[in-house]
């Protein structure tokens, strides 16, 4: 295998690993913030215990989020030196400010976690607010760089040299606003759904006491409300993102939908496999006119197809499946959240039925899969370009002959860290069951 392919595999895997912890870092810190706020307003100790336990879990994840982030951050320069050379000239500012967001998060996280017993209530809320703000800002800032790769602006290439550099135009590129909202909304949604899963899992246990059930139910409701809001926003904003693709990256949209011929009244193909020979999606369901309507806002709008572009610029067509899975997960999760909240409101006094709890347990993993599919879709769908229209992936890559060994070493590292994280989480929460926290004398929980 050549070093370009190995670099792509290594970087893609590293990102897919980092994003698990990074997303939870963004989503769960926001949930901790809400729990602290409710604790303060309602003076209900359960929410204090909740914030504490969520923070414990988050602190464990942070132990992997930070080093895996350090890895991808440095790896970007190691594996994609050609890319970073242009980044350094055109879009270095967001990367640089991101570091300050990390600082902010790291400093206040240390304060919130390690000095909790010496902080007043208000200072605790202030520091956790800074943690949440730092995490969300870092997601926002890295996404600026990412959106710029998709819709590059703010420079020109003349005879291979970069000229006319305008850092602001690069930052304010056309896909920046809409994808940033998408990334943040999906991170909040995923953080909330993961906590929904955990609470639902605990509620499935028949042996727990009334006090424990009440605690888990509060957690479930808080997380469900946030998850529903975030996922509704995700769907509407996802629609605008698709509209952006139509304007800026028609080829990516065509690949996502498996549309070969440019046409008005373009149908939306759900699932199925795009077949290059047949020039059609085989085995899916087609909704006539739907794609035109989604992309342009009117069912007789014209949508460009793959055949408008040279075939050697097409991304791999399996992105169609990734895209469908992401969207499918989005709509299923909205449905589940509406159902569960509706049920809880209508049958106020009764417990949620077992089957519904089982369904709720799946929401966290599903949401995380949505994140993975979405990102892989976005990065693979950009191929063969690293900077769309400007730099091919093959000219961005390192030519070092050692990537193979490194691939092996890093994959082993990730597997080890995943296993360790799982073990540590299990060990900690088995040793410190929630009733211990709930029954601890007032004040001792912190």
């Amino acid at each position: 295998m050549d070093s370009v392919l190995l670099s792509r595999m290594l970087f893609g895997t590293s990102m897919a690993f980092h994003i698990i912890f990074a997303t939870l870092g963004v989503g769960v810190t926001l949930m901790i913030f809400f729990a602290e706020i409710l604790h303060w307003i309602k003076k209900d100790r359960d929410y204090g215990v909740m914030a504490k336990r969520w923070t414990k879990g988050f602190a464990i994840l942070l132990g992997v989020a930070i080093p895996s982030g350090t890895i991808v951050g440095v790896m970007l320069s190691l594996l994609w030196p050609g890319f970073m050379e242009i980044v350094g000239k055109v879009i270095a500012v967001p990367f640089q400010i991101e570091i300050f967001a990390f600082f902010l998060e790291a400093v206040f996280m240390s304060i919130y976690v390690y000095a909790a017993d010496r902080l007043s209530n208000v200072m605790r809320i202030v520091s956790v607010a800074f943690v949440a703000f730092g995490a969300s800002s870092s997601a926002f800032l890295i996404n600026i760089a990412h959106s710029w790769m998709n819709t590059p602006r703010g420079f020109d290439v003349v005879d291979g040299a970069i000229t006319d550099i305008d850092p602001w135009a690069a930052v304010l590129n056309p896909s920046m606003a809409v994808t940033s909202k998408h990334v943040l909304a999906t991170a909040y949604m995923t953080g909330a759904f993961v906590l929904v899963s955990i609470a639902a899992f605990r509620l499935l246990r028949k042996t727990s006491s009334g006090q424990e059930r009440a605690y888990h139910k509060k957690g479930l409701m808080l997380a469900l409300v946030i998850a529903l809001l975030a996922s509704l926003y995700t769907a509407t904003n996802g629609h605008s993102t698709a509209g952006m693709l139509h304007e800026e990256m028609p080829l990516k949209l065509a690949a996502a939908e498996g549309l070969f011929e440019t046409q008005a009244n373009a149908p939306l193909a759900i699932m199925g496999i795009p077949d290059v020979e047949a020039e059609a999606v085989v085995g899916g369901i087609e909704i006539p006119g739907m794609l035109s309507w989604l992309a342009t806002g009117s069912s007789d709008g014209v949508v460009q197809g793959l055949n408008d572009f040279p075939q050697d610029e097409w991304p791999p067509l399996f992105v169609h499946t990734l895209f469908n899975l992401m969207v499918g997960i989005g709509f299923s999760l909205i449905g589940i959240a509406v159902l569960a909240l509706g049920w809880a409101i209508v049958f106020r006094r009764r417990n949620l039925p077992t089957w519904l709890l089982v369904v709720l347990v799946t929401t966290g993993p599903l949401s995380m899969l949505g994140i993975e599919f979405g990102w892989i879709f976005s990065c693979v769908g950009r191929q063969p370009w690293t900077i769309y229209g400007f730099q091919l992936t093959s000219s961005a890559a390192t030519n070092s002959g050692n990537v193979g060994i490194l691939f092996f070493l890093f994959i082993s590292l990730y597997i080890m860290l995943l296993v360790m994280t799982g073990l540590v989480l299990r060990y900690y929460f088995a040793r410190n069951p929630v009733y211990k926290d709930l029954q601890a004398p007032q004040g001792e929980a912190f």
Partner: protein
Amino acid sequence: MTEPYVAILIIWVFLFVYAIAGAIDFGAGFWAMYYSKKETNATILANRYLTPSWEVTNVFLVLLVIAIVGFFPGAAFYMGTLMILPFSFVLILIAIRSAFMVFSFIVKKYTKLLVYISGITGLLIPALMIAILPMAIGGFIGGTGERQYILFDQLFTSPTLYTHIGFGLTTELFLSALLLSDYARESGSEETYAVYRKNAIILGPITLFFAITALLTLIPQAPWMVETMIDIWYLFALSLVAAAIGYSALWWPSKKQKPGRARVAVIFTVLQFGLASFGYGYSHMPYILYPELTVFDAFTDPTMFRWLLYGYAGGLALLVPAFVIFWRLFMKDKKYLQAESGEGNGY
């Protein structure tokens, strides 16, 4: 001063801060391991220092890499081709170390394992990092154009590599012993203070020995650097003076039980290190990688340079207050410093 020199100066500042913070951080890991068998407060103290500080130290590493790519995008190519192996090994070790740092805080069962992991990586990481310096002074690069690589056989048989590593490690241990002795004073533990003071006294002359041999091995390896070094001999002379003051402060009379002013020793040693590393960096100019790459070749676009400066100014304005709070909570607060053991944290 021209713009590329301003940029490399900023990078030197980041490198300097990371070197100090990293030396202390990694060194504390080593000392915690060294004393783990002997049931002293020395272990507990080193661990308590490490717990809240490694995250912040880590961000400095990222800052450094991002600053290099931002100011000198032309250097990215060399990082990605020549330096990919040492950097990747450092990354893997850091990942293992950081993860265990957090895991062992949460699950006490892992504390013993952590002590060894952070002790061993505390030596390996700085050794690998410092090994990058001799690679940058030239003479170890083979191949041409697109296909360049490090001549590892020549590198590994070169005395320059080993004197640099020796210097890196002794500096790390010396600095961390000094800082921990100061930290012990601040926590009111005179007994631990004495332990770390003794280590500092032993390590001081060894560090000096390696510093001088590292310079001597440079003479055949990098005559172009030595020429500049002779021109700025006064910087190195000042650095020696600072070293002498710092070292002697370990015997200055003090109001406490044991003699020595740890704080003064720390400040002067850091100053000495600053002067010497500035002199080293200055002599390295204008090359980033001799003789391939100068700061002028690698420099970013002037527009971008200005925006980066605004960015750093804005970021620092935000961060300095945060750091002040951090410092007061972990380095100054008597309640935290004097807690019986690593416990006493609610979380």
